[in-house]
């Protein structure tokens, strides 16, 4: 077998570097969105409002019971079509569309937000009830107690699990190739089909993912150790 990694790297490298930018951008924004959504969903699921709890329970079941890839397709193809349909019905002309990257960010926020909300919820429940009582006894309202004394330690206890989700998310960006986001897999696939440097291209791709994810998991382990030390 004749392998030419040098050529593959020369030609594919710059394109992959651009792709890394796309991947990091979507990962970062999507993950921040997921964290915010996770806290909001967790608070909603712990609220006294039965209707809200019920709705969120159903949403979480739907999100966890369908594949992430299907969700991306749904956001990318179905949501704009639905918006257009509704607009047509009401007699408006709709120019609504979502870029593939935006769909990716929305999809990650919702999907990972739902999974991570369960982490946040159990962390909130794990905070010593004495913290709440101490806050209340000082004169803080329930809401402020949550904000100042429950959520911070709960988030801190969630960090190790969040780290795992972050590593999973960066790898899951490869799914976005299917909705035409110019991320790493799509660039590699295009390159391989044009040059037939298949082995070289996909090997390089795998290595790039490793280079992205290993430092991230190391970082989350470091943060975890730092936090445990207090």
């Amino acid at each position, binding site marked *: 077998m004749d392998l030419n990694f040098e050529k593959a790297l020369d030609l594919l490298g710059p394109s992959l570097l651009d792709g890394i930018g796309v991947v990091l951008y979507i990962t970062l924004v999507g993950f921040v969105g997921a964290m915010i959504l996770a806290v909001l969903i967790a608070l909603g699921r712990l609220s006294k409002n039965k209707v809200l709890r019920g709705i969120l329970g159903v949403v979480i079941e739907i999100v966890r019971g369908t594949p992430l890839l299907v969700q991306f397709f749904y956001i990318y193809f179905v949501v704009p079509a639905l918006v257009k349909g509704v607009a047509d019905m009401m007699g408006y002309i709709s120019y609504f569309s979502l870029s593939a990257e935006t769909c990716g960010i929305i999809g990650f926020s919702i999907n990972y937000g739902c999974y991570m909300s369960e982490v946040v919820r159990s962390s909130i429940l794990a905070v*010593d009830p*004495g913290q709440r009582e*101490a806050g209340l*006894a*000082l*004169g*803080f309202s329930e809401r*402020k107690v949550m904000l100042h*004394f429950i959520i911070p330690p709960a988030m801190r206890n969630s960090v190790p699990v969040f780290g795992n989700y972050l590593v999973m998310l960066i790898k899951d960006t490869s799914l976005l190739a299917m909705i035409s986001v110019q991320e790493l897999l799509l660039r590699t696939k295009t390159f391989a089909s044009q040059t037939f440097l298949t082995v070289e291209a996909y090997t390089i791709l795998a290595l790039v993912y490793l280079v992205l994810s290993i430092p991230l998991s190391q970082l989350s382990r470091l943060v975890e150790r730092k936090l445990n030390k*207090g």
Partner: protein
Amino acid sequence: MPVIEIKNLSKHFNDLEVLQNINIDIEKGEVVVIIGPSGSGKSTLLRCINLLEKPSGGEIYFEGENITKLGKKVTGYRKKVGMVFQRFNLFPLKTVVENVMFAPIKLNKTPKHEAKEQAMELLKKVGLEAKADTRPSALSGGQQQRVAIARALAMNPEVLLFDEPTSALDPELVGDVLEVMKNLAKEGMTMIVVTHEMGFAKDVADRVIFMDGGYVVEENAPQEIFTNPKNERTRAFLSRVL
């Protein structure tokens, strides 16, 4: 007028009657110690006073105002009634001085430097100014409890509630906490203390209340109750703990 008037207070958890027909007046500057066997309702009574537990019946008046009807305004009342817990309940992510200054900054809008100055003074008072920048987890139980007292004092409460403040401490650490409490009593702080420390009750209390089975069985000056208990149950309890 008493600072706190408890009238016909009752509390039940489902079928379990925890407090029944409690009537107590607390005068300003008074140190009231509540003693009694476990499960007698002492802690529940204390928790009802600052509404961590919602009373099932009866009223509690604070400076003449019925606090069981406060609704959302309960936060304003709780600022005036500090509480010290058995398990300290310090905020673990904050340093010692932050624990003390946090509530005044957030709730009274005290400027940060002022709150810090005040917090340092309070820490000095409880003998822990050297520990200001450490985390609570690095302190002994007795030190944590003294920080908790400083934290409660930072809101300038009218009344301080102590819920078995020394029960979670190693015996040799109890003395420092009791010393701080004695000093507070001397300064005229109104205190309601649930404790098993009979020595503290004898030395510091103006009045001792003995509870059993959810009732106030007997209340009297400490010398009376300890040397000459009127009630059979009080006598039986004291003979076991003294």
